[in-house]
């Protein structure tokens, strides 16, 4: 009897390790940076009306602009290094003819204008969200974040963090096709 009791801790522990291995190796679970799905997916894009960043930058835009075609809304800022990292991917999307809108999150108009001038402006229109009120309505927790909006103005997909080549090919592009097809 005593022998069995002393084996119990090892046995329980082995079971626990099994559970942990199952959780860690579950690739589906780990593939998503934000494991909690956004409550906004499947809901209409929040109402907003953002002004242009500066006269030289096309914009701003509002909820109405997002209806009628599938579009991508990218939240970015000039002070955000990952935004610079994803910039080529966003430009590539725009180059393929996707309507990409930019929400300029808590930025200085001058800095944003310079940044777009230096790295290129892929956006059809940029809205200045200096106090992050609109970003808040979008449920943005950090920059960059990228949303796919279908033709009815409903949020179809949300990506948190920079859009890497991998994310672009495996997530964004398939979801875009899905949104266009549906």
């Amino acid at each position: 009897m005593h022998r069995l009791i002393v084996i119990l801790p090892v046995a329980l522990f082995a079971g626990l390790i099994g559970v942990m291995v199952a959780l860690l190796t579950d690739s589906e679970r780990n593939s998503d940076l934000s494991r909690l799905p956004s409550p906004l997916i499947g809901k209409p894009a929040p109402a907003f009306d953002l002004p242009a960043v500066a006269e030289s930058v096309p914009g701003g835009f509002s909820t109405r602009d997002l209806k009628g075609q599938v579009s991508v809304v990218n939240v970015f800022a000039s002070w955000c290094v990952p935004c610079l990292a994803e910039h080529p991917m966003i430009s590539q999307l725009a180059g393929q003819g996707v309507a990409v809108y930019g929400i300029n999150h808590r930025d200085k108009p001058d800095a944003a204008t310079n940044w777009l001038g230096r790295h290129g402006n892929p956006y059809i229109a940029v809205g200045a969200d200096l106090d992050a009120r609109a970003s808040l309505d979008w449920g943005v927790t950090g920059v960059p974040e990228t949303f796919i909006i279908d033709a009815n103005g409903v949020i179809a997909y949300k990506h948190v963090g920079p859009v890497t080549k991998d994310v672009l090919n495996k997530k964004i592009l398939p979801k875009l096709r899905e949104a266009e097809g549906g």
Partner: protein
Amino acid sequence: MIAEIGQFVLILALVLAGVQATLPLWGAARGHSALMVLADRTAIGQAAALLIAFAALTHGFVTSDFSLTVVFQNSHSLKPMLYKVSGVWGNHEGSMLLWVLVLALFSAAVALFGRNLPPSLKARVLAVQAMIGVGFLAFIIFTSNPFARLSPAPLDGTGLNPLLQDPGLAFHPPLLYLGYVGFSMAFSFAVAALIEGRVDAAWARWVRPWTLAAWTFLTAGIALGSWWAYYELGWGGWWFWDPVENASFMPWLFGTALLHSAIVVEKRDALKSWTILLAILTFSMSLLGTFLVRSGVLTSVHAFATDPERGIFILAILALTIGIALTLFAIRAPGMKGGGLFAPVSREGALIANNMLLTVAAGTVLLGTLYPLILEAVSGGTAKVSVGPPFFNATFGPIMVPLVIMMAIGPLLAWKRGTLKTAAHKLIPAAIAAILAITVTFILVPDGPGLAPLAMGLAAWLAAGTIAEWAGRIKLFAIPVPESWRRLKGLPRATSGMTLAHLGLAIMIVGITGSSAWRTELITTLVPGESAQGAGHTVTLSAITQGRGPNYNYERASLLITDKGREITTLTTERRFFPIAGQTTTEAGIYTTILSDLYGVIGERGRTPDTSNAWTVRFFVNPLVPWIWLGAMVMVFGGSLSLTDRRHRVGAPRRAATPGAASQPNPAAAE
């Protein structure tokens, strides 16, 4: 260059740990004293190497060397110096470095101060300690290198998590790690004893001071963390049963049980295999906590940047360390025969009850923390639940009640065979105090929750029982006062430490009860100059000012608090926006008296045009909340006092000494 030195000594530490984990073990098995002594040298060498590595990383942060990836990701040139330094451990890589540094420092302390340990036991303890070190050093070097360079070096960093930019939190992790990792000593001693196949009173005497030191640090660390959560998170609460809080609380519960069961091994040569198991479990909880926080298995405000590869690595360390220790336990434990026999009603019996309750409590917390994970794994990811405060409040509280009742009784029982009658006689003051506390509480707050007066009675019972036991030791008022004074001075510090630690818990219960039962709050929106009534006070938003801190912008509100026209205080609360991190934090304004905290927080500004000049204001009256941290301080002080007991320093009697050889110089001190 300095970072490369850090990188080099980090690898050197791994090599030293590898040597220390193997050769001394071999030496102990074969009786080669030269190989056993080698462990001392490598332990000290390892600690020195890691100190240099830690200094090198600190240098990187202090000089804002953004060519280092961790510095770039976690620091910023505008950050105040204090937070540049605390930034060293405010991230995954640096905190792991601190983790192994603490581990190595504990080993070095054994090497330096453990002169009276038998050479074979010392060699084995250090070897086990080094095995853990090898695992974590390899983890750091292969998956979380703090000295990784970035090219080209960015101009400036991305900043520390703004929530961590706070003096309370700056020192919270080091304390916590000293506690967490300190339990590795008890673990290594336990595994070494299993290898030797021998546990005796002397062993328990060597283990206790290390456990006590770790326990004291962990108590301080948890208290500091909860204090930080209280004033920084702005929710007015101080404990949230967050998985990461639980991760630090579980080793504390097991460690507390271990402290008490080691006393039984030391004094009575009983409970051996149980104590060994507790030592293993305590450190296992520390490892589990490290794993949960860093693997990304859990989602929490505390979770570090996650990476499945790292998770698998820590899991492998965890599985090997705990798995081997528990297997060794399963093989060796049946052979360990306890010596001391005792009746159920005895000091031993009370300590066993204490152990059972603490273990069940720890098991409850463990279950609540892991249940969502287990369910998710079993259901294949379809079932997701979260277990929150209602579960823990409903299960943890009821376990604590008998524990606290026992705490007053246990110290009054004699070893081997106690009588309830004598104890009951000594507990009359405690019973009177409890009834008095219940009555007074009920009269003062008749409309509060019904359980609150009972909880206050419990606290009074524990406090009065503890004081009565202390008074009995020094025969207060039974003999002339100078005579009592002499006895008080002769009281072993370990005994006084126990009295203080138990009193600390009583004080803490008062605080917990007060803040959870009688908290009142007012949540409203105010335009500057406007007032609102609530929570027994009038709150006026007297002014809002805006300004700039070193790396943030703030909105600062002054809240004038009056009670029936009498001005009490003006609370200053801030909302800080950190543009670099894009995050907002709040600083609560707190006015503390011994009886309560007035706690004010400013929230968001209104978003629609007609509310754009109004701010959300939350105001709490948290009765007795300061008692929670006062109690924790008393507990920490008790632990520290006990650590300075000369018996710990003089060391244990030699093994195989006759049982009477350890007798106390002072008969009053016979515990």
